[in-house]
């Protein structure tokens, strides 16, 4: 199997589609609103790499890498990536990808814009997110372009930063493989990330949302100071809100993804309404409940201002607070009555929100 539609995904296929695609598949299975997507499998990657002994050459090149020498690492990574790029996708694979993309176009229109995403087998693990270690290509149109970006995703398994990260995290290079996700792209008014706990203090009753105009890349890359919202995930009340000046938005103009400077009212306006904050939070909460642990999600909103449609683009386990031992506030507190006494002796302060 070279291509797998993610609405057909089940857990036994995890090793075939990598972390990101597996989580997309699980999100679709959970009924979450994820744009349609298919995965180019790990088998397909391996099959292509076996052509002309590319895999053996990779293995040699990856032996005894010194990640402390930045320059040496960079040139070694470039050599390795050149090996990957020299490989043509196996013909059967190319056909399968063309067919799958063609069927997306049948459903959604000519030259459907897609995101081509890396989905490595060691990725989005609770202990190591590999967040941003591999490449993603946005607004890719046409089967040829999809195939070309697929190869780029394969190559991104061997960027200097990915190699260094694996060394740091003690993942052997020859045990990590690359699947590639191809997913319809929405053109969002506003998008961003959400975390189903408060990253400031680890409070699990909150959902923290970062949002900016346009595509979410500006938030993920840190190019923009996003608007920040904190919402209680149980009663769905917004308890914190910081609206920042957003200097730019990432938008698609003439089928090209570009950065557009923002000024005036739009730069300073809150890019989510209260209802939209709650809609995003509800989706994040649903993802968290489904996966049974705190999540870090990417979302996007399109549709008219009055009738927003929220899409979930990605959901992965939160890795910072989830791996820390939970701190207890009960340390030193004895019985109920002593607690009442200590409350009276050092009373709480009530804040106005």
């Amino acid at each position, binding site marked *: 199997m070279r291509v797998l539609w993610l609405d057909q995904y089940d857990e036994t296929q995890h090793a075939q589609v990598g972390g990101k695609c597996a989580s997309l598949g699980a999100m679709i299975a959970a009924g979450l609103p994820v744009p349609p997507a298919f995965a180019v499998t790990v088998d397909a990657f391996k099959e292509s790499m076996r052509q002309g002994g590319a895999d053996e050459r990779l293995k040699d090149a990856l032996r005894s890498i010194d990640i402390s020498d930045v320059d040496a690492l960079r040139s070694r990574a470039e050599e390795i990536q050149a090996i990957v790029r020299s490989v043509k996708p196996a013909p059967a694979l190319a056909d399968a990808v063309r067919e799958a993309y063609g069927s997306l176009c049948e459903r959604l229109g000519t030259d459907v814009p897609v995101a081509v995403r890396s989905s490595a087998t060691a990725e989005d693990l609770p202990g190591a997110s590999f967040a941003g270690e591999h490449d993603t290509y946005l607004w890719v149109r046409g089967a040829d372009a999809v195939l070309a970006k697929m190869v780029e995703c394969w190559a991104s398994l061997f960027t200097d930063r990915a190699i260094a990260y694996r060394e740091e995290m003690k993942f052997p290079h020859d045990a990590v493989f690359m699947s590639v996700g191809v997913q319809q792209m929405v053109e969002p008014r506003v998008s961003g990330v959400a975390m189903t706990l408060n990253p400031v203090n680890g*409070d699990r009753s909150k959902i923290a949302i970062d949002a900016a105009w346009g595509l979410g890349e500006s938030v993920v890359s840190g190019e923009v100071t996003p608007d920040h919202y904190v919402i209680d*995930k149980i009663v769905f009340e917004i308890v914190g809100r910081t609206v920042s000046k957003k200097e730019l938005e990432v938008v698609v103009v003439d089928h090209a993804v570009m950065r557009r400077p923002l000024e005036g009212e739009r730069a300073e306006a809150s890019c989510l309404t209260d209802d939209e904050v709650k809609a995003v939070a509800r989706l994040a909460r649903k993802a968290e409940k489904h996966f049974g642990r705190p999540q870090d999600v990417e979302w996007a909103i399109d549709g008219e201002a009055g009738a927003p449609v929220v899409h979930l683009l990605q959901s992965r386990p939160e890795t910072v607070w989830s791996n820390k031992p939970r701190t207890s506030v009960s340390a030193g*507190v004895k019985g109920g009555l002593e607690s009442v006494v200590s409350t009276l002796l050092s009373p709480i302060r009530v804040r106005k929100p």
Partner: protein
Amino acid sequence: MSKMNRFSSPFDIETPPGGEGWQDLYSSHLLFSEDRKDYEESQFWFRDSIHWPRVITPFDVTFTEYALYSLSQYNSRHYMVPPALGVDFRILNGYCFLTPVAANPADIEGRVPHFMERAGFYYQNWNELYDKWMVKAKDVVARLEAVEFAQLPDMVDLEVVTSGAGKSHMYDHTRSYHALIDMGLELWQYHFEFLNLGYAAYLDYFGFCKQVFPDIPDLAIAKMVAGIDVDLFRPDMELRKLSQRAVELGLGDRLNSSASFAEVEKSLQESPSGRAWLAELEDAKHPWFNYSNGSGFHHNDAVWADNMDIPLSFINGYVGRLVAGENIERPTAAIIAERDRVTAEYTDLLDGDDRANFEQKVGLARLVFHYVENHNFYVEHWGHSVFWRKMRELGSVFVQQGFFQEPDDIFYLKRTEIPDALMDMMGAWAVGTEPRGKYTYPKEVARRRGILEALKKSTPPPALGVPPEVVTEPFTIMLWGVTSESIQTWLGGLSNDGGLSGFAASPGVAEGPARVITDSNDIGQVQDGEILVAPLTAPSWAPIFRRIAGTVTDTGGMMSHAAIVCREYGLPAVTGTAFATQQIQTGMRVRVDGNSGEVTILGGP
């Protein structure tokens, strides 16, 4: 207005023109004075407009004393609350100012074991003691209801002679007055038997929630303990039931009109179904319509049972909605389900000791909260309503003997002056001459009325003296809503940009024309879709809560009765804005943001 770092000294507040001599209308121990100036200057005093929104008449200060001294006594002498003594108060220009008094720091440690023993006993035996409380409270009210002040006859009944009673009106009235006054105090002693401990347990639970879930909304904390079967909401439930019955009996048209209660009653008497409905109304009335339209602390807060046009107007509203096909039943099952869902989901986020502690604290808070919600009906509503009614009965005896123009004039006398007036009246009746009071009281009451009218025209400051850097006293925060932030708001004074901020007491955003209600008896003026702006809201306003779009108040802590009811009814509300009734006028368009606590004036009338 520029920011200052303190409020005026109580000794620098001027008497408004025409209010001169107001000091004589209150006992001297209630006034700021040179004798205790050092203490009084050193304290921070904030105005209590939650319980006493208006100028207090000389008699009404009775309940100010009973309530605050009983509260204080339980803190300081019964339960030995470690850091807090009582809450002292003074009357200035007819308004009530409070100051919490801290325990001597050196005594705090020594008070702890006593508190543990005493409060512990109550927490452990809460339900049993609460059952006893209910018996005691109902017994006082029953004894209050049994008090009688008969008009004075030319000749006492023969039965007085033949029964060998040996005493009559002079003794009866004197004794009844003293009994009435003492029962008022008894009622207030009971009021605080549980309340302070209830607040303490709730505070502990509240503080724990804020620790484990740092930004948890206050509303969520309240939701987890909100009672379901609460007597404070029963009067409104009775109105809904009566409205439903009226529609079932085919009386909807007659009730859905603007006629007065007297007219409606007359027309209902003509049909069997009308009489059946009136009988049900009579059943509901006792005791549930002993429900004040205000806090219950002013003698002239309208009580439903004595002003049947008020409940009738609420029934009008409900009948109209029933006729329009609306369901007016309270979704009790949904409320219980939501409370349980919220509690379970927060609990699930915790593990280990935190989870065990949370469960224990929610449990204790729920146990105590029923009293916190419920006592209000028995004391401030039922008890006070009967008390004021009996005082009016005595007032009408004075009217007949020429002392007063109207029964309510009695509230212009101090509690301690009434025995004198009574002796004058009873003595003259006994002797068969004219009482002196017939000449002195009408003039004196008119004079006092004039003084209080002059005081009403002045706007009292929100606070006096030097505020503490941080407000930490728990009851001040919970009950009166006085926080470091609200003090800053008061110090900032009225803002010029038309904005107000306060507590986000109940979520949601609403926009509409404002209706400013400063006298609770005007509540009937409120129209559908309006934003209610008031010094505070009363639980008895609940029937209009579904008609209005939102509410803004000057005052209110999160545990004040008004706040409890707003949450119960899910009404978007911003409380504790300090200046809303001064800054907003009826007809202005305003936006209430119950999420952020902001109130914006959008345009003039």
